């Protein structure tokens, strides 16, 4: 199961000793904020430069929802011939678009193995490395 709890955000209560256990309920949980469909959501890393103009850099965390309906121009993770790729979908033209200079659009061919795995609902920049993965 995805573990969301270790990424807890404190809502400015630091400095106060919490007077009762009830306070634990006031902790804000990033998972709760960022993840709309916990059972259908997974987390991954972005790797590569092709989406930088959409604000996704190599090493960013991606929150990917399989519950979301895919709309035109959504950023998605898709299985393209056995590799998970991050792309913008151009539904009417059946194309996958990158968001960086030098990356041409990819037109889907009939022989391609292609499935949309989920919609990228958030991306998170890690300005310092995550402790949990060191």
């Amino acid at each position, binding site marked *: *199961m*995805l*573990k969301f709890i*270790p990424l807890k955000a404190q809502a400015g209560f630091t400095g106060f000793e919490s007077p009762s*256990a*009830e306070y*634990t*309920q006031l902790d804000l949980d990033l998972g*709760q904020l960022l993840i709309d*469909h*916990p*059972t*259908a959501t*997974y*987390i*991954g*890393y*972005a*790797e*590569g*430069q*092709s*989406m*930088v103009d959409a604000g*996704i850099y*190599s090493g960013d*965390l*991606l929150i*990917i929802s*399989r*519950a979301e309906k895919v709309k035109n121009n959504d950023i998605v*993770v898709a*299985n393209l011939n*056995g*590799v*998970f*790729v*991050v792309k913008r979908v151009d539904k009417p033209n059946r194309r996958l678009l*990158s968001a*960086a200079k030098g990356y041409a659009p990819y037109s889907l061919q009939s022989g391609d*193995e292609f*499935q949309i*795995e989920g919609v990228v609902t958030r991306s998170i920049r890690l300005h310092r490395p*995550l402790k*949990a*993965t060191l």
Partner: protein
Amino acid sequence: MYALCDVNSMYASCEKVFDPSIRNRPVVVLTNNDGQICAACGIAKKMGIGKKFVPFFQVRYELEKAGAVIRSSNYELYAALSQKLMDTCSQFAPHSHIYSIDECFLFYGKHATYVPPEGWAKHASDIRRTVWREVRLPIGVGIGQTPTLAKAANHAAKRIKGYNGTAVIDDNRTRKHILANMSVTDVWGIGRRIGARLNAQGITTALQLANQPPRLIRKQFSVLVESTVHELNGRVMLNWDEVRAPKKEIYSSRSFGQRITEALQLRYALAAHVEIASAKLRKQGGLAASMTIFATSSPHDSNEYYRKAVFHRFVVPTADSRLIMAACTQAIDTIFKEGIRFYRCGVGLLDLCDANNYQFDLFAQTTDDPNFMKIMDSINQKYGRGTVYVASRGVEHKFAMRREFLSPQYLTRWADLPRAYCI
């Protein structure tokens, strides 16, 4: 009505969820310590490779030649995906029962005339499609008036021509058609021995069994087989807790009558599941190498949905309630959260092996006490379940085991999160 949802080749299918490069390739999964084959995906089965329980070293060359992808059992991943599967399925019905790591029953209430607004056939395919879309696991869905008929419908969904992954037994004509096309040994609860005796009497199809006089069947076989006859005719006889455990893994889980909000209550509930599951494990002469412990709030309560599962691996495979309970007790701190109204909890014993054939490690000696457990079981059998049970104690060990072909723990380790490429 009841629905049974189960995953096609669970372990092999799980390996494909986060590794798209192997989705169209034959995948074979090995048991504990990479000893034997324990699962093969549909593609591998079609190629005639990956027969279960064959020692790996015997077929290694053959598998490599066929281009098969070989994986060690990644129970951390399977347990996490199982949890997602169960969460997703349980949204479709008011009651659900986790039967094994890859199977769950849904129960729609006692009103025999209840039909969901979209109709049963559409309902079944909605469950199947949703699980594929949201969890990426392929499942079959069978719906019927009793658990045994749901199981039969599920069999039809996968094996009988004309059904593509879903089947509904909601009228007599379909019931007869499916049961007539199903061999009696495929009926839930009819083992090989009883099956052979039935065959000897000329009863070869499920429909023939259904048409036997129940009393006569009880005389010749047992009350259990009599129940099966009733169930095949649409009369509900089975109760969740009496349902037989499957061989590969044992789950005990249920929802509470009232919501639980205290850690101690949760612990008592989990302790009861440990007792049930470990007694079943000992009865089939098994040892468990790992377990999953879980608790959730209700997806039907208005509050936010909470779910938490902990995976535990035993140093040495065990069937000792005390060791299993100790692992469970440690997990409670992680699972319990103040303010959550717990709706369901349970344990699953995974990675089972046969106690008689298990080769113990020189450096990891068992601390099980089979004689003590035997006494416990016989007391409980005589005086009723729960007459004696364990108070908990804490143990923690490290372990080492052979998992040469292990895939990453995509869902349970931060360092193992899947990669998506911006290329």
